[in-house]
């Protein structure tokens, strides 16, 4: 992966932290991704927009390793990890949330976040409780607090309201202090106040954290992102600053025009 590729203009010429090359994904006869190229610079805040079925989640799945692409390559921090199983990618600093919240229903909010921490710190096979454990528990409680779930620490994830489960997902991702944070529609199902809080949280992340954000809420997406990529039908059809994308006629036609439908 020594190719010095500069298809997308890099602000400082540094190697991209996420590099996607000609990625194709076929589900049977259906081409969900038809050759995606994407470079994300360290610390960049990138929003991925596009109508339902455009392949946004599939692209996330490929980057996070939940599915292997039919063709093409993915590199994270310059390491080719196209075939690397998903469980090895957190070590590269990748954390993600899922569009349909995936939390551990039988476990409490605090335990869910604690597990994210334990996995990250490679403490998850320890069959006793130690001082390290107590520290991780205290940390989990702080994270729960930070995503406004402090009052629900002891609640089973399965008993949370939809919006709260999304907050929990976010907390689990943030707990590991990722370098690459991938959020799949984090604002869907949130109340106005919760959205505000989400934006505040994301804006408060350290500058070095790279954020990939799939979001239907334009307001949230454009406030967070410095760059926007628009996908439709398995391809990227436009990319640029929020203003450029807003003005792109193809985007209006394919995406913004149909937004009322979703």
């Amino acid at each position: 992966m020594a190719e010095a590729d500069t298809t997308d203009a890099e602000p400082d010429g540094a190697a991209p932290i996420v590099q996607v090359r000609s990625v194709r994904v076929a589900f049977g006869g259906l081409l969900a991704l038809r050759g995606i190229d994407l470079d994300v610079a360290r610390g960049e805040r990138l929003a991925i927009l596009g109508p339902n079925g455009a392949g946004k989640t599939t692209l996330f799945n490929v980057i996070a390793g939940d599915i292997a692409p039919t063709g093409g390559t993915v590199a994270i921090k310059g390491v080719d990890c196209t075939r690397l199983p998903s469980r090895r990618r957190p070590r590269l600093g990748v954390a993600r949330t899922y569009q349909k919240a995936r939390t551990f229903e039988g476990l409490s909010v605090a335990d869910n976040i604690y597990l994210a921490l334990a996995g990250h710190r490679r403490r998850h096979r320890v069959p006793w409780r130690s001082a390290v454990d107590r520290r991780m528990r205290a940390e989990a409680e702080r994270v729960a607090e930070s995503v406004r779930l402090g009052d629900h620490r002891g609640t089973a994830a399965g008993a949370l309201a939809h919006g709260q489960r999304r907050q929990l997902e976010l907390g689990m991702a943030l707990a590991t202090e990722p370098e690459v944070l991938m959020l799949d529609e984090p604002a869907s199902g949130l109340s106005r106040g919760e959205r505000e809080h989400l934006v505040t949280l994301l804006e408060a992340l350290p500058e070095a954290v790279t954020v990939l954000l799939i979001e239907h809420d334009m307001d949230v997406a454009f406030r967070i992102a410095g760059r926007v990529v628009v996908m439709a039908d398995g391809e990227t059809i436009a990319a640029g600053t929020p203003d450029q994308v807003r003005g792109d006629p193809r985007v209006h036609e394919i995406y913004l025009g149909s937004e009322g439908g979703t």
Partner: protein
Amino acid sequence: MRTGSTVNRRTAALLPLVAFLAALPSMAPAFFINFVMTQTLMLGLAAATIVFLAKYGGMVSLAQFLLFGVAGFMYGNAALEAGSRGLNLGWHPWAAVASALAVTTAAAFALGALASRTTGLYYLMLTLVYAVIGYFVFAQITEISGPSGITSIERPELLAAPVSLYYTALGLSVLAYIGFRALGRTAFGLALQGVRDDPVRMASLGFNVPLHRTLAFALGGFVAGLGGLVNVWWNGQIDPASIGIGPTLILLIIAVIGGVSHFEGAWLGAFVYVLMFTYLRDLPLIDRIGITEARFNTVIGAIVLLIMVLSPQGLAGIADRLRRRLPRPRRPGAERPAKTTGRLTRAELIDE
């Protein structure tokens, strides 16, 4: 911490029961202790491993009785010097104990690894296949099982008195109960519950899901092996028929009537089963209404069915419901999930 104190409270509630059971031999007839109670405790121990794997890991295993048997056979082969129809290795009894546990745990690790990418019904089927194959291995390779079992197996001198076997089974049961419950609050145990709830999510958090399942299965095998040792000491012999499909299903029935989401249920189920098995046939009415030896299993089946209809959570579920009827101050922040998944509820773990 809240959860810590709840565990302690449950453990404290256990104390009077353990004290009572420890004093029982001076109060109850020897037959009740050495037959009913010892058998209850060792079957409960084995059934608790089914509960452990099902409750925390979502893995319903039918191979636990096989592992129980592996420990027994290994002990028999290792401990006897001559005269048995097994390997007659003639090792020191405690070396035989260690080897039995090591072999059982290793076998469980291997079988668990093979099944570690399977879940749900497929896990049940695969472990059933283990049980069947295991039975045939011991039935057909008579070098390790004797043509009709390994007989006159003696227990280590320390356990010579019959009642000491009862205390051994009691001690192991208490340890397993406390240990399994405590494990549920450790990183390993919580991760296992995470694997049960969403293996894909666990992988994306960096967990090695198949390895975690395998380690849990190996631990379950180790504890089943402890039960198997008590069993072989208690019986003084072991033969392939004793680990066939019949006993395998009986152990599952014990776990199910006890309640697969409660560790208490394992011993409760074993107690009820042993009581039925021991005393039902002596009831005076029973012959007159046409229930003879041959129809005995039908009666047990009917009772099991009745328990299941009354409470899908088994006996421990009934006990739990009664306990909840009693007014008790609710702890804040300990809401239960509204949704339960029927067969094995996940709610139970939250505020135990």
